[in-house]
């Protein structure tokens, strides 16, 4: 809950001020036909000039460049960029695994930051939070403009973690409800027994650039286990007996790094980006340093 004089408990006011000036930087500009603030590749009626072309019969004479006509005595038509709207979807993984090590808090903070960037950038911003498998996600439908900011922040602040939702199933649930092209920010640990390729493919097919932020706790990045131990899954309650855990750590790290590389590849191949984040990092460092340096925002 926000304290007096602070808009949200998730981010400081100074961070909010800096976020207001930031804009998302999509890689492929997947936009909707609706008019927006993102220039489309096709021509349009915005004020941004792009090129000339020969006049042909039937063209709107309002776009003829009369200065050129007067000098060359030939009509040329001025072409302008078309500006379209872009959907900005923030998907927060709220499963039990995210509750560990402040991962969910980090996810909520990043979600709030992206909402601010989206809303201030004029994007149609929507938020989804998935918890349990087979249960409808909590979500805020696409919003526009600053007036929706407070509602979005309240929604994010009130999110609670816990559940057995996997990120792949969560994507299916989201796509059942979302229509529109743009960017999807996936805030998850991506620790799933399912196939990660499928949700990324579906997001891509739905016109959403998948931008994955994998949030892992220090215990997951550098587990300190040794001897014979029984690991219990926090989501499913399943147990796994391992022996000489310290001897398996190298293998664990190999698999974790392979997962990161797979995620990066899947995001990159689908026009998105990938960023691994530690849950104990400061959110300012992520927002204003890493995201900016990696071109997520501008």
């Amino acid at each position, binding site marked *: 809950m926000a304290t007096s004089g602070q808009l949200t408990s998730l981010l400081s006011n100074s961070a909010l001020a800096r976020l207001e000036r930031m804009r998302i930087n999509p890689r492929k500009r997947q936009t909707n036909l609706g008019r927006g603030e993102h220039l489309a590749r096709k021509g349009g009626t915005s004020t941004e000039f792009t090129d000339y072309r020969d006049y042909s019969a039937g063209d709107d004479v309002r776009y003829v460049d009369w200065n050129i006509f007067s000098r060359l005595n030939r009509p040329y038509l001025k072409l302008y960029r078309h500006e379209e709207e872009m959907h900005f979807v923030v998907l927060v993984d709220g499963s*039990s695994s995210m509750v560990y090590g402040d991962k969910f808090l980090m996810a909520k903070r990043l979600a709030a930051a992206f909402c601010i960037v989206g809303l201030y950038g004029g994007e149609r911003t929507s938020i989804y939070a998935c918890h349990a498998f087979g249960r409808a996600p909590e979500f805020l439908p696409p919003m526009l403009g600053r007036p929706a900011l407070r509602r979005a922040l309240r929604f994010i602040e009130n999110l609670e973690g816990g559940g057995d939702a996997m990120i792949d199933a969560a994507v299916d649930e989201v796509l059942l409800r979302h229509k529109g092209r743009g960017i999807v920010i996936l805030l998850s640990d991506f620790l799933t027994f399912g196939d990660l390729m499928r949700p990324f493919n579906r997001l891509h097919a739905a016109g959403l650039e998948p931008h994955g932020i994998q949030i892992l706790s220090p*215990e997951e990045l550098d587990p300190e286990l040794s001897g014979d*131990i*029984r*690991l*219990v899954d926090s989501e499913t309650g*399943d147990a796994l007996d391992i022996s000489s855990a310290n001897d398996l750590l190298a*293998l664990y790290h190999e698999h974790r790094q392979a997962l990161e590389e797979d995620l990066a590849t899947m995001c990159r191949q689908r026009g998105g980006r990938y960023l691994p984040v530690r849950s104990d990092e400061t959110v300012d460092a992520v927002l204003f340093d890493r995201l900016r340096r990696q071109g997520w925002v501008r």
Partner: protein
Amino acid sequence: MNWIGVSWLSGLWLLALAAPIVIFYFLKLRRPRSEVPSLALWRQVMNDQRVNSPLQKFKRNLLLLLQLLLLLALTVAATQPFVRGDAANAAYVPVLIDHSASMAALDQPGGVSRLDEVKSEVRQLIDDLLPGQRLSIIAVGSTAKRLTDFSDNKRLLKAAVDGIEALPVESRLEDGLRVTQALARTVPVETVLLFSDGNVPPDVPFELPFQLNYRRLPAGGVNLGITALNARRAGPESWEVFARIEASQTEPAAGVSTGTLEIKLGNEVLASEHVSLAAKANERFAVRIDTDKAATVTATLRPDGFDALSSDNNASLDLPVPRPLTVYCPEDLDSYRRALESIENLVLYPVGDDSGPSEYDLVVSDRASDLDKQAPVAMYVGVVPPELQELVTVKTNLAELVDWRRSEPLLQHVQLADVQMSDEPQNAEGVRNEDYEERGYEVLAFGRSGPLLLKKSTPLRIEYDFLFHTDRSTMPYRIGFPILVSNLVQETLRGADLLEVRAGRTGVLDPISLAPNEEYAVTIPDGENVSLRSSESGQLVGVPAPAVGRYVVKRGGRTVATVGASLTSASETGLAITEKLQFKEIEVAADEDQLPSDKPLWRYFAFAGFGLLLAEWWIFQRRPRRAAA
């Protein structure tokens, strides 16, 4: 691998327990729980691990490995492995422990005695006893005493060893070896262990039927002791008392050992002499005593510095009442009577009708009927003892002397070479000198066809037998005849303790003359009472003397005799070392190192198992680094 063995090979079957341990380990392994956000990565890790190495679970399972090692250690311990020694791997091992006087010697001031060191080694031997091995503890001093039967009861054996005390007696190994030989008739004895400080007689008249391992401990330290206390008659009522002090072989730090010797008659100090002796040196002290009564002379040595052995610092000597010798000699044996009458302090019987006492000090006779007369010393001339009559016959013939034993006290300074003898003892056909020896006789003078003079010596009687009659020879007319009679009287005086007396020795007391066939109680110095019965001849024999001091003989509560016993042994005081024991056929060298014995290893494996158990417990109980969520 001959140097190592196992006692219970069947114990290896215990290794079969490894199978249930492995099974139960994986079935019942209790693991600490640790909740993780997701098992997604761990499942991939496990799948990858199983694919890469199916046996990884076994290889990396430290607890299981420790449990299997524990089982292996316990199994090996159960088989009771041992490192073979050279000696004591036989099943039945008699252990002879010398507990003579020298074993009480200390190595240094405040040090340990030889016997204590032996006890320590034997206790170790008992601790190392293997299954199936049995020891028998035999204490050897002047006699041998078997303290235990063959037993593997360690408590019993150790109690027997602990109960051994050094006695102030000389060593005699023969008894111990004979006891062992007797044991060897009941059980197979291959090896005998002998623990001693080496202060034993080097020549052992014994044929070894088994292997003897002779463990010799280092000798004791510097010692000074009384090795002799004697008295010689110096007149009718006076004695010359001699005391000999000897030093041990160990070189004293100061070069000499010093002390004070005090000689007392009763409570009267007769002499107090300063003693200063280098190693192996000895000194003799003499003092004259005038007394007409029985008396006790005591000698006490007080060393100034460290003295390894204390039991040789006291000696006592019992001086008898001076009295004349009683001699029986028939009146018709003129030659001897005349010679005897010229000797002082001698009463000759018979005198007229007085045949004298029932027992004499000396009997000289030429009558076979006098053979049963009681006397400690007897001489018969012209009489063939009944047990020799089948061996020799005396013919009237001129006998020819071949040789005689000049070292024999009776024949000292007696020239027999030209004696003419008209009686000739002739051996029966096939009879040799050994036949006389078998009957207890020693030939002192050899004739051409048979022995001329025989000697039969028993603890209670010395008998000389001239098989020819001296009156039918030229002997009485020779200058050597009175010397012969004088030698006989000297022997009698010596036998009656009237010429020389020496301090009684520990071990077994000299025979004590008392009333015949009576029950006596002998109180030994440590207070213990021994009941003994005197013989028909009035001798109390076989009185054990295990301690230095006065032995009181009582009958019906009344003291009838007091006898002293002292160590007075030059070998024990000198702490001499015998490096090699010479037996009849072989010699046995001493081993200064601890006797090699089978070293059981089971306890090391048991300790290793215990260590593994602790390690497994610690690993099992330790908290995982990351606490369960």
